[in-house]
């Protein structure tokens, strides 16, 4: 899992490796599962509508499937350019 911008600051790390249970199959379910890992995770994900995700470096919605994915990233809406 990769975190960027204020999500990285709130979680306290930019990168962590996790092994969620088999019934965590979507981005949204992964957010639920990660939120229970620590108070920091819970705080990071509390504004759920602001959380964007990429699965293997491609933007995905919260209902997207994550099975087989090797790299999942969470971040706020982008503000480059």
């Amino acid at each position, binding site marked *: 899992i990769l975190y960027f911008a204020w999500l990285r600051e709130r979680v306290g790390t930019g990168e962590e490796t996790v092994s969620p249970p088999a019934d965590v199959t979507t981005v949204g379910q992964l957010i639920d599962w990660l939120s229970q890992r620590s108070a920091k995770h819970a705080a990071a994900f509390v504004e759920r509508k602001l959380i964007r995700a990429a699965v293997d470096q491609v933007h995905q919605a919260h209902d997207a499937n994550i099975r087989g994915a090797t790299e999942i990233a969470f971040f706020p809406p982008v503000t*480059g350019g």
Partner: protein
Amino acid sequence: MTTPDIRVQRDVFDQGAELTRFSSRNKLSGAICAFTGQMRDFQGPTRETGAVISAMELDHYPGMAEKQLAALAHDAKLRWPLDGICIIHRFGLLKPTEAIVFVATASAHRGDAFAGCEFLMDWLKTQAPFWKKETGPDGAQWVEAQASDDSRATRWKI
């Protein structure tokens, strides 16, 4: 169509030198459109009400940033007859007045050059994984995404 020139870099670049390089690679195109996003001087939506910005840090997603910009260039050349595309985006620490992003398009006709360039900027603003943290008088804070950027991007949808 020459291969899109896409760079995600920490180093400062000179927009004029980049335009010279781009136009010399696209000498036969009648129209060149270039856009530069510079570090702006104010925080918040308007210059009138905003506070002065003294520094900026740009977070980015290495790997995905390059891929996303390449995908946007690919989309642009499917939609308009473009002879060439250049996209340069910086990350890391930026000083006031430095360039953040440079997008250039070359085409036989000016309408296509303008449309391709503005399309790339609008989509880059909402799709490319970069995040600005601006330092103003009250400290550093992450820039919030603007709804106007989303609506500018979606107007290009077919």
